[in-house]
């Protein structure tokens, strides 16, 4: 066995299989959504091992046991929290390399060569690690593999786990696809209350924009749903226009907006780091400036008023 794929979702399976096939015939370990819809995962034509649990610990145990029996050279998976936690346990128990958020991966003979972001993605690092190794990939870095045939499905029992689930609560999500929006208004802690975000929503309406924000706006204040947080640990956006209001420009936020064509910053602090990362900056109090900007745009863009 050359490669083991850990698939969490149907949407990751094709890309992971494509990368795994570079190393030889893979087997697939299906987890969470991929375990529920295992037939679709089996349609890639490789043997599928199914774990019927959504615990990282269960995934860890299944992967550890498959590692022993199949002896893969690489394990590939998606860079998501459950898989990261499971693979950190596996990598620790075996003392083998684990690389995450990988954007390029290739077989360098006796080593695995890869590229990933570093320093909040302001730097790219190319490095190599010896085999065997675990590589968790970023989405959309390769074309998904073609489906071919039907792999055998084998169930996997992992026994009792150490960590017990007491409860699960779904997050309130907006369902808005910020990553597909052409114009985005981003709000930061420069806003003093939830009601004040209306200033941003009004601007967004005129521009036909979606509203997103920095992590604390979504998580600490809960003024926006959690799928509206932009940055290294949230959404990556690539609009034509991104207008950041009351956002300081922390590297963890800015890495999520680096794909924007034009970045505008409104901040009252002239020395805020966002100004050197923006195309157009306005040094102003957002409470004074946004109403003016919105009304001027309303004159210019009457069809949206």
């Amino acid at each position, binding site marked *: 066995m050359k490669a083991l794929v850990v698939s969490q979702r149907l949407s990751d399976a094709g890309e992971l299989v494509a990368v795994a096939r570079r190393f030889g015939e893979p087997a697939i370990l299906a987890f969470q959504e991929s375990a529920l819809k295992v037939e679709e995962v089996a349609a890639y034509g490789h043997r599928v091992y199914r774990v019927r649990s959504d615990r990282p610990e269960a995934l*860890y145990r299944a992967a550890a046991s498959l590692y022993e029996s199949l002896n893969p050279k690489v394990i590939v998976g998606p860079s998501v*929290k*459950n898989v*990261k*936690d499971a*693979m*950190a*346990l*596996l*990598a*620790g*128990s075996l*003392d*083998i*390399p684990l*690389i*995450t*958020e990988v954007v390029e991966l290739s077989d360098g003979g006796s*080593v695995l*060569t890869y590229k990933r*972001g*570093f*320093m909040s*993605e*302001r*730097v*790219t*690092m*190319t*490095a*190599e690690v010896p085999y065997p190794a675990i590589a968790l990939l970023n989405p959309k870095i390769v074309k998904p593999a073609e489906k071919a045939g039907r792999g055998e499905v084998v169930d996997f029992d992992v026994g009792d786990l*150490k*960590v017990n*689930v*007491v409860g*699960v*609560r*779904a*997050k309130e999500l907006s369902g808005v696809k910020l990553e597909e929006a052409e114009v985005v208004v981003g709000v930061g802690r420069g806003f003093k209350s939830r009601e004040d975000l209306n200033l941003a929503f009004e601007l967004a309406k005129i521009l036909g924009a979606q509203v997103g924000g920095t*992590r604390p706006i979504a998580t*600490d204040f809960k003024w926006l749903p959690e799928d509206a947080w932009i940055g290294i640990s949230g959404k990556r956006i690539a609009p034509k*226009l991104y207008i950041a209001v009351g956002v300081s420009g*922390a*590297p*963890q936020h800015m890495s999520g907006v680096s794909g924007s064509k034009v*970045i*505008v910053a409104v901040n009252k602090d002239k020395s805020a*780091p966002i*100004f050197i990362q923006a*195309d*157009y*900056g*306005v*040094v*102003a109090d957002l409470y*004074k400036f946004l109403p003016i*900007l919105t009304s001027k*745009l309303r004159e*210019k*863009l009457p069809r949206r008023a």
Partner: protein
Amino acid sequence: MGRDIAVLVKASLNPEVVRQGAEGAYDIDYTPLKISDVDRNALEEAARLKSILGGRVYSITVLTWGPSKARDKDLKLAVQEALAKVADEAYVVVDDSIIPGDPIVTSNVIVGVLKSRGLKPALILAGEASVDESTSQVPGRVAAKLGYSYVGYVRRILEVRENSVVVERDVEEYVETLEAPLPAVLSVTQEINEPRPPTLIQIRMASKKPLHVLSLAGIGLNVKPKRLIKEMRVVTVFRKQVVLEEANLEKAAEKLIEYLDKEGVLRI
């Protein structure tokens, strides 16, 4: 099992300070180290839990980036913060043979410190990610090596019981409430608390607390990094950096609209 808390504290490269050296290469020597932001949340949480558990708190730091001589001041500053904030003692491993480090080295060294000193913490706290590499794997590795239970991305520690800890864990679309048996390793997110900077008195007290600087030989360990860094390049995104600093905000708005219109990003 003891009642102690160990906090993993990294002196990370500061991602706010990135400079391009020759031919687009990242000038790593120019970037200072600072305490990794989320580790402050781990320290704050340790301060809250210390009285509940009733044991000692120690911080463990492994120097990843060198050369060690040039990093000494930044490293001490990060460790002093841990001591000022909550730690009774700090363990720092500095050894040029493991620089630049990797997660295999870091986790082995952390475990080496604990084992060689006979330390058996009930809880090991760490940040969810370091601000330089952000691979979120050292806490899980340490848990696997020690046979501790592990929960990553903890947003809230709800209760510490006699033999377990009840926590909320953040996953992408949901939040789980989990009970993990002690001893446990937890990585915490920045939502878990609002870290307060240490007070002047705490800072003064910190200089009197024991700071153990150890070498690899000092903990009886022999490991080598497995990662070989081939290249580091600064990602350059050109931004125009036009700044409008107008007393008259009407004018500022008009100018901004004109610029955006020219860029063709307003659908007029």
